[in-house]
């Protein structure tokens, strides 16, 4: 890992020094062990702030929305994990970014650590730093103590089902590609589908009842790139501000529907939800149905491929007689 981090710093410093780009977006470290967050580096000497560790989860592609429009013709370098690269491609397909103005450095990613999984087992106590070493995580405590645990047990669920850990879009790949061994991603959806309609409804009603309408799931989503979101319109007022069960359901159904065929399955929605609503399952249900009805489609893999909900075949199947 350290090697990769050095490479990242080196590349960032170089491309800024050579004037190839005016901004590098990567990750940097906060005071607390889990804080690896987006860093915006504009000067060569700042490049040493950049880090790479198994907690660099925030998806950086979305920042292009804001940064590109503020930088006129300037170029930006971006470090992309597998999911970030899919997100980038989706932004490209949605006409929300410009390929020529972005330099992508691909980072093959072997999964990121879910802090809550460490906390659940009390492994966060005195924790200072988390490192990845092969199949293990090295947990470094304050007093220099080290503990090794199997990495797989502490990765985000979304990482365990990741199908594109190696970036699909990049100008330069940093590091060795990692093996692709995803767990089945539709297990959760299929499990819910075993419930009858009443139980499904109760399940979701309960989940949605926790929603506080913070819109983090929307704001973090690389497919939610509208300048003005339909939920924020005053007129027509599609969504009221009251956290009523009905309004919450409307929000979550339409949110998922609006990313139908464009969701790259990065799972950031689930990750950022402060009340742990399994939002990714909603998106995955739609992905599953699109795959089943209209052919396998992976959003973000090929920005040239036509998204399934803006095209059709004359002999498409319909789901209107199913019950």
């Amino acid at each position, binding site marked *: 890992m350290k090697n990769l981090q050095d490479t990242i710093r080196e590349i960032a410093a170089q491309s800024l020094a050579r004037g190839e780009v005016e901004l590098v977006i990567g990750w940097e470290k906060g*005071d607390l062990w889990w804080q690896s967050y987006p860093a915006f580096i504009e000067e060569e000497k700042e490049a040493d702030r950049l880090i790479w560790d198994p907690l660099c989860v925030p998806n950086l592609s979305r920042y292009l929305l*804001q940064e590109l429009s503020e930088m006129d013709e300037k170029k930006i370098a971006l470090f992309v994990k597998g999911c970030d690269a899919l997100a980038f491609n989706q932004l490209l397909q949605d006409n929300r970014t410009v390929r020529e103005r972005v330099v992508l450095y691909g980072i093959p990613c072997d999964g990121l650590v879910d802090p809550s999984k460490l906390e659940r087992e009390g492994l966060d106590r005195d924790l200072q730093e988390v490192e990845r070493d092969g199949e293990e995580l090295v947990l470094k405590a304050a007093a220099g103590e080290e503990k090794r645990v199997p990495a797989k047990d502490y990765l985000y669920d979304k990482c365990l089902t990741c199908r594109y850990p190696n970036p699909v879009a990049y100008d330069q790949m940093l590091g060795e590609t990692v093996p692709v061994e995803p767990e089945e991603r539709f297990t959760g959806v299929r499990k819910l589908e075993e419930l009858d309609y009443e139980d499904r409804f109760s399940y979701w009603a309960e989940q949605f009842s926790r929603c506080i309408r913070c819109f983090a799931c929307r704001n973090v989503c690389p497919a939610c790139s509208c300048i003005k979101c339909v939920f924020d319109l005053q007129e027509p007022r599609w969504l009221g501000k009251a956290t009523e069960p009905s309004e919450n359901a409307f929000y979550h159904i339409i949110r998922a529907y609006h990313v139908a065929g464009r969701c790259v399955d990065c799972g950031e929605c689930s990750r950022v939800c*402060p009340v742990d609503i399994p939002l990714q399952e909603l998106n995955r249900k739609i992905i599953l149905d699109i795959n089943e009805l209209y052919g396998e489609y992976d959003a973000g893999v090929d920005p040239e491929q036509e998204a399934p909900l803006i095209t059709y075949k004359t002999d498409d199947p319909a789901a209107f007689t199913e019950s």
Partner: protein
Amino acid sequence: MKKVQKEKLEDLFERLAGDGVLYLPLEEDGVVNFAPWKKGARVNLEALNTVLPPKRAIFPQTETYMRFETDGKKLQIEQVEPVEGNYFLFGVRPCDMAGIKVLDKVFLDEPEDDIYSRRRQAGTILSLGCNDPHVSCFCSAFDLEPGFAPDADVALWDVGEVLLWKPLSEKGEKLTSSVEDLLEDASAEEERAAEEQRNSAAATVAAAAREHGWNVEGVEEALQDMFEAELWDKLYRRCLGCGICTYICPTCHCFDVEDFGKWQEGERFRCWDSCMFEEFTLHASGENPRPTQKERVRQRFMHKLCYYPSNFEGLYACVGCGRCVRQCPVSIDITQVIKEVGGVKSGS
């Protein structure tokens, strides 16, 4: 000092719930939040902070206060009673209790907010001292004590098999006598244990504060001159503009007013709003005095650490609960702001 055996808690809850709504930390799908207790509910008194602060019981996210009906040109308006009756907030952490005090200043000072005031009065708050603060806890920065909430009606401490129980107010006394039969006198040993826990918790947080430089002294004054500081240019860039930090904050109290209409009838409600949202300051004209996330992020920190204390005799609108530190998806961390501003001051 009294105590209640943990095995008797269920009886206590039943008693309290019979006398009003009993809000306490319940666990559902791994998420712990204050919610009305029902028999069989999964109570979690170990969780340090609930995801959402207990302010919801006093200042609900959505609250209808008026109904209206039209009939031709006639308009009928009916006030909706805000108070649901008695309630108990059980297991409120000292930082969250301090958060309620911050809300009190806003809503109970003149002009008094009638809805809030009536709700506040109807509640009895039982606080629970923290024994084992989290790495993100920084209440001591605001002179709060993790182990004790002086403003609660009853203070509780978890010392193993029992919860120590100490009434702090008239309401607390009244409650204590109403559940007398479920309480016992605490032993000196238990009291000493509680004392030790209090001290150790306070020491832990204070040590962390020292280590990280979480010192709010002078921050309010420093920020007065920092409206145009570079700090904001850096900080906002990673902000996603979601409302997590504000909605999970025990001191945030901004609300919006909206109508829900159905043809000839409807209702008016108020609901939490967030200064992180673009629409928060959007004028009907289309003008927005806080046009970008930079102004919004600045506003949040300025409000908590500068404007509010300027208005309320130096009381910061942050209680160091650490929720935003933990929950912000991109780790925008108020302690870093405190540290940096403190640093700016000491450096200047």
